[in-house]
């Protein structure tokens, strides 16, 4: 067709972006070499001695590594499930409301937390859930002893997942609401004529109508299984909850930048990237296979 000679132009369009990415994303990747070295900062990356897979061997010896990977997946999976289901329920509830202005206002308000940073929300949440904070005072009124929420390893993962779902549920309803408006109104009318109750309509018309969207979202979130949220946990955690709250990204940060374990930090980071790449490829494949949708 006519667009045959366009490739040259396409390259020109891509050039600025790729030059940018080259300098600021690809060049820094030379650091991956560190994972295979006994890195000596005085000698730099070129001068340091290669040790092959030594660091990886050590990595698998550590109890920490397994623990950190487990924590990451545990928290991330909770978040994924919460972020799929809660917005769906909320969207369904919102969909039942017929007062447009009310609906709009509620929507605007619930989007709010999505736009605030974890630096800020972290500070506020720690305050609200502090030992003497409002939440504990409220519990105190019911005779419950104060709890150090963000200092209890058993609670921490749930608080992290919960606060993330709370932050994002509003924003995540957007896609569901769009899918809901896409349902043919004739289906509801038909069901109404058959005398179906609100619940039956929900079950037989609404849910099937957004099933594809829900499945697609579930598949896409597969890529996030190793992303438990650095910003959030970095701003919420403390040494007491390392056992359950330390995730790959925070662990790598501390190992590399505070404990000077450069090789180990790089190796664990690399392992995460590889696993993440596999997961994204998998979700690309699954999405294409089941919903005939190409992510990118």
């Amino acid at each position, binding site marked *: 067709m006519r667009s045959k000679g366009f490739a040259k132009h396409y390259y020109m369009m891509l050039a600025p972006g790729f030059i940018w990415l080259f300098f600021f994303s690809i060049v820094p990747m030379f650091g991956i070499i*560190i994972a295979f070295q006994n890195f000596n900062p005085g000698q730099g990356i070129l001068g340091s001695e290669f040790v092959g897979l030594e660091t990886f061997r050590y990595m698998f010896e550590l109890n920490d590594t397994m623990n950190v990977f487990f924590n990451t997946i545990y928290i991330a999976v909770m978040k994924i499930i919460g972020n799929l289901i809660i917005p769906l329920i909320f969207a369904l509830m919102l969909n039942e409301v017929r007062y447009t202005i009310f609906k709009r206002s509620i929507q605007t308000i619930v989007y709010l937390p999505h736009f605030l940073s974890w630096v800020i929300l972290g*500070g506020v949440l720690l305050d609200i859930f502090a030992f003497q904070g409002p939440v504990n*005072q409220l519990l105190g009124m019911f005779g419950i002893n104060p709890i150090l929420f963000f200092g209890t390893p058993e609670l921490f993962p749930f608080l992290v997942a919960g606060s993330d779902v709370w932050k994002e549920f509003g924003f995540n309803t*957007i896609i569901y609401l769009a899918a809901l408006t896409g349902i043919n109104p004739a289906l509801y009318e038909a069901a109404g004529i058959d005398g179906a109750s609100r619940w039956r309509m929900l079950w037989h018309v609404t849910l099937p109508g957004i099933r594809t969207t829900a499945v697609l979202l579930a598949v896409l979130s597969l890529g996030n299984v190793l992303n438990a949220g650095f910003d959030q946990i970095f701003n919420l955690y403390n040494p007491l909850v390392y056992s359950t709250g330390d995730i790959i990204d925070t662990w790598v*940060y501390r190992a590399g930048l505070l404990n000077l374990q450069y090789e180990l930090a790089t190796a664990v980071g690399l392992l995460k990237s590889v696993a993440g790449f596999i997961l994204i490829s998998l979700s690309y494949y699954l999405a294409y296979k089941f919903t005939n949708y190409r992510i990118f």
Partner: protein
Amino acid sequence: MLRSKSLSSKLADVILITILILIAITCILPLWYTLSLSLSSKTAAAAGAVTLWPVDFNFDSYKQLLQDSQFFKSFWISIQRVLLGAGLNFIIVPLMAYPLSKTIKDFKGRNVFMWTLIFTMLFNGGLIPLYITIQNYDLMNSIWALVLVGGAQTIVFNIILTINFFRNLPKSLEEAALVDGAGPWYILFKLFIPLSIPVLATVSLFSIVYHWNEFLYGLIFMTREEFYPLQTYIQQLVVSVDPSTMTEDQYKRMSELSNRTLDAAKIFIAMIPVLLVYPFLQRYFIHGITLGSVKE
């Protein structure tokens, strides 16, 4: 029969609306609590006496805040960063998304470029190589380090969103333009971009929010507080210090210096810009996300 149905339906409506309002309230609670805290007296805040309403209402912390020149310096740095970052994002995203939205039939190299992008999104060499790279570019303490490094890591997601939006545009438009002899630049700028305002507004919003909220690179690439963007500035205020590493006089000073009301005032002010921006872009981003149909 009919009457009881509508009655129970009304009751359901009331319950539904009440729940929705309660949920919405939790979303503004942090904002409200921070405001109350910032308007309370220092002693009340330190004693944990503030819950929902300011205690000993006063504007002292805001008066104090006005004298903190660093806060405003950082605020200004963040504004610049957002303008540069979102501006660059706005230019590069459609330029890259357009060729990549072509099928492999129209653009042979498409998949190679696409997977390269995915690769840059997932892999990185860690913070230390990144730091060394920025140092070699002589960009330490430069706002461009924040704009370019942060931007490079978020742009791929924005490109994917825009690719999907472009793909959903009616094919006939482009074909008609091709028949009229239009080239790719013309199609992109005169046809696609004007039709893509929702998605471009959406990715701009994402970019604005990202650059406003990101704190870690400020911490890494800036060697002095005077260069910190706002979130970095706030982060170092709210993070606590490990007392076991403190000397005796530091320990003593710390207890005298904690100033939660002033911190709350800073946090509150830092929330405002985002609050001012997103409600106005709401119409666009709902549309943009729906048609881009990819969830973060």
